[in-house]
């Protein structure tokens, strides 16, 4: 029986790793074109925008809060940028700067609701999620906003065999990881996630840190939006929809606890997002019913959240 116990312990602790490896092997063996460099690069390429946005979400989650408005922030900020480019002929670099500023502002509004007005972060970002998307749909009339043809080429450039969007993703996610693990700000975020009352008692500027975490989340969401817009050549009304849930699932599956204070960006977000994109890609390769993706994704999310709950129950006992 001890062996059985040990296996369950291992599965709970490293559950994600086990699932990851199993799924990877399954698809590699069962399909013809899954396990090819081209396909694997496609997976990473496709997941890049979500990974960037999820990195921002990860910061907020590690501080003990939630931000489910990231998809809507991406949509609204990019819609504004794309519309300005189309109607005013705005320079793309300037437009990108405006998009990022919008992301920061929208994130700051979230921060205001949560930190200043002390609204529960789930409720606050739920309302902004709906409001921001509504505004964006109004602005775009729920129409596709196409990018000017001269910047569309970026979506497909490669550096050798590696698509540029993968490099962009790394260029953004790695600094965020360093921010979380090696800077004062990052440690303060983790402190808040541990116990916000204790952190305050210790003199940590909890409100300022919390505020900045939401602003960063907004900025990263808009950066992810820019990347997906370039990939698609247009801002579509579907931009970012569902991001919040997949990102949240990816973050938890990757090892960041919803209770806060635990996990790292690079090693949690990237594997987490990868596994979901991998499942979608693998199922397509199999020619499976595409609605099965939701079922499989749901099972993975459930398993991850359950393992997270078990893990935190164990450490809850040692936290007191």
């Amino acid at each position, binding site marked *: 029986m001890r062996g059985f116990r040990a296996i369950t312990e291992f599965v709970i602790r490293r559950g994600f790793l086990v699932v990851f490896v199993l799924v990877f092997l399954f698809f590699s063996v069962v399909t013809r074109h899954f396990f090819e460099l081209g396909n694997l690069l496609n997976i990473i390429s496709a997941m890049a925008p979500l990974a960037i946005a999820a990195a921002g979400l990860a910061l907020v989650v590690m501080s003990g809060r939630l931000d489910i408005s990231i998809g809507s922030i991406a949509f609204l900020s990019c819609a504004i940028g794309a519309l300005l480019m189309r109607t005013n002929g705005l320079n793309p670099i300037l437009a990108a700067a405006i998009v990022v500023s919008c992301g920061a502002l929208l994130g700051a509004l979230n921060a205001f609701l949560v930190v200043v007005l002390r609204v529960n972060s789930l409720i606050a970002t739920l309302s902004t999620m709906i409001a921001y998307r509504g505004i964006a749909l109004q602005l775009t009339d729920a129409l*596709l906003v196409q990018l000017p043809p001269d910047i569309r080429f970026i979506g497909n450039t490669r550096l050798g065999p590696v698509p540029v969007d993968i490099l962009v993703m790394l260029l953004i996610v790695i600094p965020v990881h360093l921010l979380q693990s090696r800077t004062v700000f990052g440690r303060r975020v983790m402190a808040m996630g541990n116990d916000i009352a204790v952190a305050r008692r210790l003199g940590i500027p909890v409100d300022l840190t919390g505020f900045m975490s939401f602003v960063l989340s907004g900025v990263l969401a808009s950066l992810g939006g820019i990347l997906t817009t370039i990939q698609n050549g247009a801002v579509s009304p579907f931009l970012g929809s569902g991001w919040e849930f997949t990102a949240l699932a990816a973050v938890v599956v990757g090892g960041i606890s919803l209770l806060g204070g635990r996990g790292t960006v690079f090693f949690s977000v990237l594997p987490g997002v990868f596994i979901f994109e991998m499942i979608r890609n693998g199922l397509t390769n199999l020619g499976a019913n595409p609605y099965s993706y939701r079922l499989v994704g749901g099972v993975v999310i459930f398993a991850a959240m359950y393992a997270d709950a078990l893990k935190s129950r164990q450490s809850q006992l040692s936290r007191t």
Partner: protein
Amino acid sequence: MKRYISGAILGMVAAAGIQGAANAEDLKPLTVGFSLDTKESSLETAWVDFLKSEGERQGKAAGFKIDWVINVANADPARQAANIDDLITRGVDIIMARAFDSGAIGTSIKAAEKAGIPFITFDRGSTSGKPTAHVGGDSYDQAKQTAEAFAAILKKAGVQGKCIELQGMLTDINAVNRTKAWNDVAKATGQFTTIVQVPTNWNPELFLSGLTNALNAHPEANCVFAASDFAFPSIQAALEKAGRWAPTGQPKHMWLATCDLLTAAVKPMEDGYIDVSTTWDAYSQAKEAVRVIIAIAKHQDPGCGPDGCLAKGRVVTPATVKTISNLWSRDYAK
């Protein structure tokens, strides 16, 4: 004498005036509620404009002044049902709706029936209730024409087609008709086969990722059929990614057939990337819709066929796209 002449002139003017006033009063007011499900492309804007202009032209001739009440449901069937309820409460004379979900619209049809308001389904029919009339494009015929023209093109080039089919949202009856027609023609001519079907839910992002994955999983594919080209940029991005973006005549060319020929697809067709498409004629559809509306307002039978009053599209190829007449998507850029 002068008094008589001026009197007669006054009298004639007065008579003309009264006649004019009477003419103005002859135009009966007719309120039509139009429920649009979404505005995913300039097609919807074109419809609204054509409906309004046709409404004024045909309406005046028939003695009606048509007032439009338009609402948009942002791709949400529940929202659309609520919008239609609003129209019913408002007491419009006729309701016309472009359904988001051909199954869900049945509830609204019943509600209108209960309130005694005639209901016309526009562009997308209903699978769950019988409206007073249906006006739309003939989506089955559209895909059939495309497919047959495509088969002819492939035959001429000596190519046996192995196609990726990008399907639309399968709760949209038009998408269902198109995939049926495409595959019926495949069976009939034998010139091409569908090796994989990618459902896109009319989501441009799924056009991109679905086509990318399909191209990767089936490198032997040499043709693509898109049930609509409204999200053509995504299709282009996926082909570019796979290194298959080239116009006809070049070795990397991917044989491409689409439906609708919307604004996003016009230039690619002019440049030879798209081989064939069949138009979704917004103008003739709007014209037909207004005719049916007026007929119903006059309590006459609009005289629709078993599938409704359908307007057919026209086949277009790179050779004809620049010159074909009345191509609203080419001429009507937003």
